[in-house]
């Protein structure tokens, strides 16, 4: 199988996923979400609708929340991807957002949770002290059928407080690539 960059049906891609370099050959029609789930066996990213409305497939691409079902795996070549599996520390310590979701009952079935967490990681990186309505706007692209959202909002505000507390462990969360800082790709 010809794997050169001119190939129109299969491509070799190289990217960083949860801090690890990944090299793989993909069919061009595979979405990023399916690549993560099937080829990398990172099944934390969920497929709810596959047309961009539910948010369950949200991952971070170069620090930016992205619908994994609306991106082709080939488009992630050269990118840094963070999935829900990449939020906890290597020793298993939960990210403050994950801990807050646990403490404040921010999940029930857990289906929307990976998308919620990655979206909220981006929010807190951009806006470390969000107001409640800002949290609600940030998750407006993520549907939850279980919680009614209030517990998710409570967990987020609690996580924000915990992350700002003096002595809070500075987690190396993927920094968002802001327009001013980004070189032309």
């Amino acid at each position, binding site marked *: 199988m010809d794997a050169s960059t001119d190939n*129109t*049906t299969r*491509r070799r891609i190289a990217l960083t996923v949860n801090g690890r370099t990944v090299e793989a050959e993909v069919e*061009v029609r595979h979405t990023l979400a399916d690549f993560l789930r099937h080829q990398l066996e990172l099944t934390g990213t969920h497929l709810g609708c596959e047309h961009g409305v539910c948010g369950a497939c*949200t991952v971070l691409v170069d620090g930016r929340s992205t619908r994994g079902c*609306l991106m082709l795996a*080939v488009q992630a070549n050269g990118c840094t991807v963070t999935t829900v599996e990449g939020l906890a520390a290597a020793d298993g310590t939960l990210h403050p957002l994950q801990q807050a979701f646990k403490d404040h009952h921010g999940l029930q079935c857990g289906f929307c949770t990976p998308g919620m967490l990655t*979206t909220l990681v981006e929010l807190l990186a951009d806006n470390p002290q969000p107001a409640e309505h800002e949290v609600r706007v940030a998750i407006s*692209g993520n549907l939850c059928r279980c919680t009614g959202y209030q517990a998710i909002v409570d967990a987020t505000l609690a996580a924000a407080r915990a992350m700002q507390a003096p002595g809070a462990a500075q987690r190396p969360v993927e920094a968002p690539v802001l*327009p001013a800082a980004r070189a032309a790709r």
Partner: protein
Amino acid sequence: MKPPAFEYHDPRSVDEAVALMARLDDARVLAGGQSMMPMLNMRFVLPGHLIDLGQIKALNHIDGHADRLSIGAMTRQRDLEYSPLVRAHCPLLTEAIQWVGHRQTRNRGTFGGSLCQLDPAAELPAVCAALDATLTVASVRGERSVAFADFPAGYMTPSIEPDELLTRIELPHWPVGHGYGFVEFARRHGDYAVVLAAALLSVDAAGRITRASVTLGGIGPAPVRVTGVEQALVGQIASGALFRETTEACRSLDAMEDIHAPASYRQQLAVVMARRALEAALARAHPAR
């Protein structure tokens, strides 16, 4: 719910892209993917070839000129949202972009993609109508300019040929001190608008309106510049009463009827949204010193 098989191309330049579009019969372009990917996932489109524009750096720019902003068609919506140039020279766009989809879709979605999709309820086409934007379209035959008013050919149909590519959008500056307002009625934040309105006003030191732009989206297949209201406003002293009186004319606009709202409700919304957009614009307008 998976894309069909297609051949994938990722050209590095506009020339390469338009050459592909001229050569390949059964090709679609991929910009931000926030409309195309759902169509592929649901197999509403079955292109033999997909031309990904994401590697064409020349299409991704926001440039300020003396009289206008020049924005590349592949500029991501989030870059428009956070751009200090856009905020300084085209605050209407900064305001409107926050209503476009959700954070996640703005991270990938593009300015040009939204314009070519031409959803009747979309914000970016309405902003281009409000500002009298000029679009540049390229093909193997060269470049041509299209006034935004001439761009919509029909429902979700831009007037570009299958082998043409939208490359650039020019947004002329309004004078310093102009007022702007953007309002939208939707059932939930981030939903497509039922009706939206965009207003721009220039007001002199006496409070007299010297220039007005009033645009309604969601009413018909393309954004509507309500020139009758604009003409009734220019030369008048701006006031809430003037806005209430002049926007009543929006009630007689042809309006779409669908599962989201009957035509009569859209007409009612048109009157209310236009008035609120004008009020917001007036509050922001200050005559240039």
